[in-house]
């Protein structure tokens, strides 16, 4: 068995370490805010579409935002959400459903196109069609088969920090050597101070099995990927509590373990890498690889085959179902 922890971000840590070191070296270094004259920017349609085994298709349509445009509630209401699109999902089984714009607690902005009838099934391919402002966009994704992890437990974050009050979650699984697998994991916390509405995807948000094909490995999960949209609607105290990286006594942690297809993985890994290191001034930013066909479009249409676990503070493992 091997233990990989947050190995995925090693290179970023080296680079960032060197950046920090260089900054420390620069006795006289100074920073000044500057105005940047950007090229003209036209907003693009952003398609955030997911379909999961046993769940409806959920598609959020938004517009991308000019970089120096301030984003606030007024801008969201007037410019961000696209509410007049036609969204259709068809399956490789011939099933077809028109999605309806509705309140959706699982969507970051609470409003999304949701399939009223169609539910995701394993080993099935789904095609998304979006028509908006006279343009049409297409994408295809496949929900692979589900898998089961071996176990999940709370792990000590450090020998140095207080091991009684700060822990991470480790999960252990055995990779299938017969196929290429693309994994992602996410956590939700329920505790006295707050309950997560959205899944938090730790870093890296996705990875493949090239490094550990066919072997048993374990993986550390922190609450590293939490953003403002996760805490929207929380009180200040709840928001502060939710931003912590580690888990505390009394936490119930839900773990979602997913497999996806290669194109979904490509989007998740490039998007995740960009989200972490995109504006590192020492790295050339890499484009996020979308699986959507069409002009001036961003985002992806991703299928997930997911299973769930629920763990309590003291190494109690149980399954969590919806």
């Amino acid at each position, binding site marked *: 068995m091997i233990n990989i922890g947050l*190995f995925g971000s090693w290179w970023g840590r080296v680079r960032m370490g060197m950046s920090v*070191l260089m900054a420390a070296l620069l006795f006289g270094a100074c920073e000044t805010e500057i105005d940047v004259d950007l090229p003209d*920017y036209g907003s693009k349609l952003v398609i955030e579409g997911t379909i999961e085994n046993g769940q409806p298709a959920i598609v959020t349509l938004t517009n991308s935002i000019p970089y120096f445009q301030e984003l606030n509630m007024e801008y969201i209401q007037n410019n961000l959400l696209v509410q007049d699109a036609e969204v259709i999902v068809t399956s490789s089984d011939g099933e077809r459903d028109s999605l309806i714009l509705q309140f959706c607690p699982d969507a970051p902005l609470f409003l999304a196109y949701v399939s009223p009838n169609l539910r995701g099934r394993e080993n099935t391919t789904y095609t998304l069609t979006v028509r908006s402002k006279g343009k049409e966009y297409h994408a295809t994704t496949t929900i692979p088969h589900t898998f089961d992890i071996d176990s999940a437990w709370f792990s000590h974050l450090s020998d140095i920090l207080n091991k009684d009050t700060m822990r991470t979650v480790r999960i252990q699984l055995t990779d299938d050597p017969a196929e290429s697998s693309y994994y992602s994991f996410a956590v939700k916390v329920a505790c006295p101070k707050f309950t997560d509405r959205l899944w938090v995807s730790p870093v890296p948000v996705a990875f493949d099995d090239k490094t550990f094909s066919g072997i048993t490995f374990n993986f550390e999960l922190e609450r590293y990927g939490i953003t403002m949209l*996760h805490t929207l609607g929380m009180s200040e105290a709840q*928001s502060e509590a939710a931003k912590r990286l580690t888990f505390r006594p009394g936490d119930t942690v839900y773990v979602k373990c997913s497999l996806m297809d290669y194109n979904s993985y490509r989007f998740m890994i490039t998007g995740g890498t960009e989200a972490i290191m995109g504006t590192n001034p020492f790295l050339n930013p890499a484009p996020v690889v979308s699986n959507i066909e069409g002009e001036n479009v961003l985002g992806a249409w991703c299928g997930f085959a997911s299973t769930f676990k629920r763990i309590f503070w003291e190494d109690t493992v149980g399954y969590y179902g919806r």
Partner: protein
Amino acid sequence: MGKRHSIILLIMYCLLPFMQVQGQRVTLSGTVRDATNGESLMGAYVILTDTARPQDKQGCVTNQAGFYSVSVPRGTYKMTINYLSFKTIEEFIALEKSVKRDFELESDIIAGDEVIIQGERADHNIASADVGRMEMKIEAIKAMPALMGEADVIKSIQMLPGVMSGGEGNSGYYVRGGGTDQNLVLLDEATVYNTSHLFGFFSIFNADAVKNVDLVKSGMPAYYGGRAASILNVYQKEGNLKKYEVDGGIGLIFSHLTVQGPFKKNKASFLISGRRTYADLLIQPFLKPQSPLKGMKFYFYDLNAKFNIIINDKHRLYFGAYYGTDTYGFKSSSGMTKAQFMWSNATASARWNYIISPKLFLNTSTTFSYYDFSTEMGMDVFKFKLGSGIRDYALKSELTWMPTPKHNIRFGVHNVFHQCLPGQIAAQAGIDNDFPFPTQKPYFANELSIYAHDEFDISRRWKLNMGLRYTNFMHLGAFTRYVLDDFGTISDSIFYRPGEIVSQYNRVEPRLSVRFLIDSMTSLKASATLNHQFMHQISMATISLPTDVWMPSTDLMKPQMVMQFSLGVFRNFYHNMFETYVDLYYKKMYNLAEYRDGLDFSVLMINPDQLYTFGQGWSAGAEFFVKKARGRFTGFIGYTLGFTRRQFDELNNGNPFWAKYDRRHDVSISLTYDILPHKLSVSAIWVYQTGNTMTIPIGYYFYMGSYITEFSERNEYRMPPYHRLDIAVNWTIKKTSKFETGLNFSIYNVYNRKNPFFIYLETNTNIDANSLNFAIENKAFQMSLFPIIPSVTWNFKF
């Protein structure tokens, strides 16, 4: 071209001068040295003027060993030996038979009143057929203002037209649009793979140990190879053959000391020189306990050594070595995060010079180059080590043959065995769990070159430098090539046994440059060259860092190929007091390599060359240069207008983009005024460069609650320009034949320009939890490195 044809061509080429050998000729040959310390003088002119026909002049330039050879018809000649900053020797000599004479030139420093910018004959720039070659004397480099008062070879050559700096904090330099890896840096003929100390703030070359610096940026002679853009040839001093000498300097963060002298007077000498920074020691008492630098190593040092043995009139041996190390570390106040970075450079060379005959000179050398980088990082339970490096073992033998005064022919063989260590990685992510990262095995390669080069004086007006270089490059086992499927998953592997040829390339590189003398003050020069480069350094970062690894050409990574054309007009004025030139260039580059976009972490399992994508580049520009070479007021102004683009099918949607260091305008002004000749001088430099290009965020969006940035086309945005004024005062307090002391006062960045080192972007989020109001706002910040920095250095010599 087939191998057989290439060999035949080379043999024919070598035999060509025989056809022009005339009878009844005698040869004057020997060496030219500095009378004060016995150092060989490279680049001195030896000219014979026929007393019967004064218009008939024959001459040559001394090579790196100070050797010269001039063949002329029997007769009486006026011999002139000329080297700037030295007294000219003039004497009449009757040549009835071949004669060997060694000369020692007296320094002209005391008698003269000039400050020398470059160690060349006054009209060298007009007479030579070298189009893009510039030599800088170390005295000129030392006279320039410098950061912290430390004279810097690399910073000085960045002042020359066509040579772009990467900016502060960047160890690389860029020649006519080429990459940093396209510059071959030689220290006593050994390749130097990393020229930087302190992340590029200083170079590894200790000015006290350097004798002279030679830069070739176009019209590259055939005896140089292996790089596509430029050659920077640095020679260490040989050591004083006459007397013991100690030079030193004490500065604010540096001190340096050089000791040299004879083992046996006029027969054998040594030189040992060293530098060390001590900022880490000086600042410790002032650091708070929680400072990231408290108790951490934070320094660099280097050592140079040279030994020189004159066995007899015909044989001479040189041994040179360099070793330098940088060590930097920090830790967080909690002690959870620690990091240490180390890199070391070493070179060693042994050279044997043999004057076989008055017309034949043999230079044989063996060199060793070493570069190692390692980093250790600890972040809580996560520990990570990364190491990389390269070793070169080289043997070179070159014959210089001067059959007639019209020909100076060099031909030789050069073999380099490369051992690249692209990535040694280890990680620990738990208390008792090591993750066995796949360690990359060393890459082995052999680069064998043969070449011939002739400097041919066709007539008084026409001169031709022509050459041919042939290289056989082999990537050798042991090696495992992984075969990937369409999804990048390893589907198979091929194992090559140790010594087995994995891939090989045979390349021929023709080099040609020609000079047409319009009149004694004006010449036209043109060159056309083809260069191949078999070693590659691909940087993942936007700046050149010590982490960048070297890789040999493989079956996937073809050798880089660069064609360059250059055309220049050179004109001197007022008896060579002012030198000017305009030089136009165009380059086409093939098989350039960059990292693929969107690498994921599993790539550690595959071969590193599978991470790269390949493309092409273009570069064009015009260089303008004016220099005042003599008088109390000296200096130069250089301006380059340049364009550099790249095109990769897999980057930027296949669209061409500006290179990172595409600089539209580059201006360098260096001026020196001798207030009191050789006692007090003031100098100033001003540089201006168009800002670097960068890829900048233009928009953003959300996916699954995460904020994702959308970027511009690659390198579409241009940072603000870089400019800076430095001044220095050099004051020689006392100078006698036995003791010399002086002070150097420097002010770096006089008008405190906040030059961009990098631009970074920050997202501010404000949330009002009660009202659900929030705001996300992005801002851009510019990080600047050096403000105005005054410094003082005390120098001494006895």
